[in-house]
């Protein structure tokens, strides 16, 4: 027997899925799970029909409607004719090709990256793809999961494989422990602020270290979700007992003897001692503060007690121009504190922070409090199941009593395709993943932050530090209104 060199989890999953590889060509990589939604799939199904092809593995495919659907009363028809047509086309495509669909009205409906784990479809060691860049979320289970374009959606539908070059690896070690008021979202925003939005290009992040081990599965999903915002197509966390406990008993998780065999197999996945990465960075969790973005990409983030950086401090002319443009769009002054900046809208939801534990965090802050005058707080559960759970736990009552809108599940104001959007010039604190120009509505301005920071800001009416609770109401006096 030959002794194999120490391997990373990425190396292991990769080797398990290479179907074949011609010299000089990318590998033909087998796909275990393909997630489909209404926005990036129609042209792929059209392509299949044009070639007379069929869906090779409908049982390894699952669809939902999430991006363009309204988050208002589901018993009413969709008023946006284009969105309605897109949803109808998804329904027709799934029916024609035998793909299970968790559409509007189905109790399994929800954001594609929330329902995969919830249903137990997302499992360690799998390859998972979806026509959505936040597919990296599923890496939290120790799966190799990444976003693909519509041409690739068509390839996976037709062949259950993809052409891929093997990725480079990037260890993101987070040591220590998070302090109260600091959460998983702050870890990932801190990472991206350090390496920039192109820092992980060509790489897969593997998150390691004691702070990562200490996270729940939902917190791990928040971290992996935004790997793409650091340029990495995928981000992974090796599976452990936390992973297995989360999965056990879920509808599509293995059961009985299959479960034991699966766990034995999953325990072989973690990166071997002595394996090396192409790049590495270390973050000290104890030193992290709540993070907030001030600019127009997720790399433009600062600890919440810091000041907005000045273009004049940027040595690189390109970065100086980019910062000038960002501050002009955001209408912020160089050197101003971000705390106390006025807020019009607060959005709690998305595939980043729309899970039950995120809603519990927000509700914990909002209990027996009320959102500031003039502030709109939208709480949008990540899935229909999350919605039911939150209602059973009484979280929805807390939100409503605090003056929030409690809505139906979907992507909502994260991507602003469905009418849930900012007006030009409005400021939002958002638990979503992108603060690009116009992302949450044309002319809208986004501060990305954690659910704790978002809820605290909703009460204060300004960007507020959740560590100042109780007494967060006094923040309203700091600035804005």
């Amino acid at each position: 027997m030959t002794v194999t060199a120490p391997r990373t989890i990425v190396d292991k999953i990769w080797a398990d899925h290479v179907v074949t590889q011609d010299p000089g060509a990318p590998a033909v990589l087998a796909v275990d799970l393909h997630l489909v939604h209404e926005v990036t799939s129609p042209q792929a199904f059209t392509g299949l029909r044009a070639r007379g092809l069929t869906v090779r593995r409908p049982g390894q495919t699952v669809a939902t409607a999430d991006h363009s659907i309204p988050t208002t009363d589901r018993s009413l028809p969709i008023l946006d004719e284009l969105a309605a047509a897109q949803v109808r086309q998804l329904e027709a495509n799934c029916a024609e090709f035998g793909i299970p669909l968790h559409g509007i009205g189905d109790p399994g409906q929800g954001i594609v990256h929330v329902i995969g784990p919830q249903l137990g479809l997302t499992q360690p060691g799998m390859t998972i793809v979806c026509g959505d860049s936040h597919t990296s979320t599923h890496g939290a289970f120790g799966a190799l999961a990444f976003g693909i374009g519509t041409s690739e959606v068509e390839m996976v539908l037709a062949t259950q494989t993809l052409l891929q070059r093997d990725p480079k690896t990037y260890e993101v070690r987070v040591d220590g422990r998070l302090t109260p008021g600091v959460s998983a979202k702050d870890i990932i925003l801190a990472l991206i602020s350090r390496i920039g939005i192109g820092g992980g290009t060509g790489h897969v992040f593997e998150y390691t270290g004691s702070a990562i081990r200490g996270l729940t599965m939902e917190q791990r999903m928040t971290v992996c979700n935004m790997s793409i915002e650091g340029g990495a197509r995928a981000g992974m966390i090796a599976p452990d007992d936390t992973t297995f406990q989360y999965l056990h008993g879920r509808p599509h998780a293995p059961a009985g003897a299959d479960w034991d065999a699966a766990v034995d197999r999953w325990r072989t996945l973690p990166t071997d001692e002595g394996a090396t990465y192409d790049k590495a960075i270390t973050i000290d969790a104890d030193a992290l503060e709540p993070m907030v973005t001030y600019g127009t990409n997720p790399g433009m983030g600062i600890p919440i007690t810091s000041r907005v950086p000045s273009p004049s401090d940027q040595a690189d002319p390109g970065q100086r121009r980019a910062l000038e443009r960002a501050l002009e769009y955001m209408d912020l002054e160089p050197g101003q504190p971000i705390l106390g900046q006025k807020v019009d809208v607060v959005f709690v939801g998305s595939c980043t922070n729309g899970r039950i534990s995120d809603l519990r965090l927000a509700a914990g802050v909002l209990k027996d409090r009320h959102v500031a005058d003039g502030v709109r707080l939208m709480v949008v559960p990540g899935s229909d199941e999350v919605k039911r759970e939150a209602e059973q736990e009484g979280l929805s009552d807390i939100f409503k009593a605090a003056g929030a809108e409690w809505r139906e599940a979907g992507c909502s104001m994260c991507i602003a395709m469905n009418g849930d959007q900012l007006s030009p010039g409005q400021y939002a604190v958002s638990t979503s993943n992108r603060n690009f120009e116009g992302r949450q509505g044309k002319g809208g301005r986004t501060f990305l932050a954690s659910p704790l920071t978002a809820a605290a800001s909703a009460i204060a009416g300004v960007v507020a530090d959740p560590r100042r609770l109780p007494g967060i109401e006094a923040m309203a006096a700091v600035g804005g209104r």
Partner: protein
Amino acid sequence: MTEPFTIFTSRAVPIPAENVDTDQIVPARYLKVTDKAGLADALFRDWRFEEDGSLKEPPFVLDRPEMAGRRILLVGDNFGAGSSREHAPWALSSWGVRAILSTSFADIFRNNSLKNGVLPVVVDRATHQRLFELLEREPDAELTVDLAEQGILLPDGSTIDFEIDQFAKRMLLAGTDELGYLLSKEPEIEAWEAAHPPRIDSRVGAA
């Protein structure tokens, strides 16, 4: 099934912004289409048009009359960050773009572009700088993009060499697509599947 990518000569459009994300290239509200047509109007929509649909004044660089018909974009670092929407290269391609020059591209955007006959060309920082200077000096400079030779010919007769994945190059030059290639691997895929039973069946328990 795209057209074979042949050598071509064009003037270039400079867009010096860095980290141009796919939400800028095609805003999300234009993703409700179910085909690929008409996306040229959505290209850089919010940089080009006012709320009422009229062109910005002064117009964004793409809308200057002299830019019509140009097939090369010269853009800032890390072009195409963000969403996996293939609508971005569809819109670029439908406007007429065949090649984009930058120091770096986001991974998914680069992949999507290659599948739509749009060539992402990575140049080093000094060359990038030199190209912007050239276009400032000679806005109508003509560049020749030669994929087969992996070179860009400049007006002064010099050539910028570039690297490209050899498989992607072959596919572009032949105008064949990856799906055709994957379909030719049917026997291998079948053998793999026989040895690796699916780990899930999403149809169980679904409505």
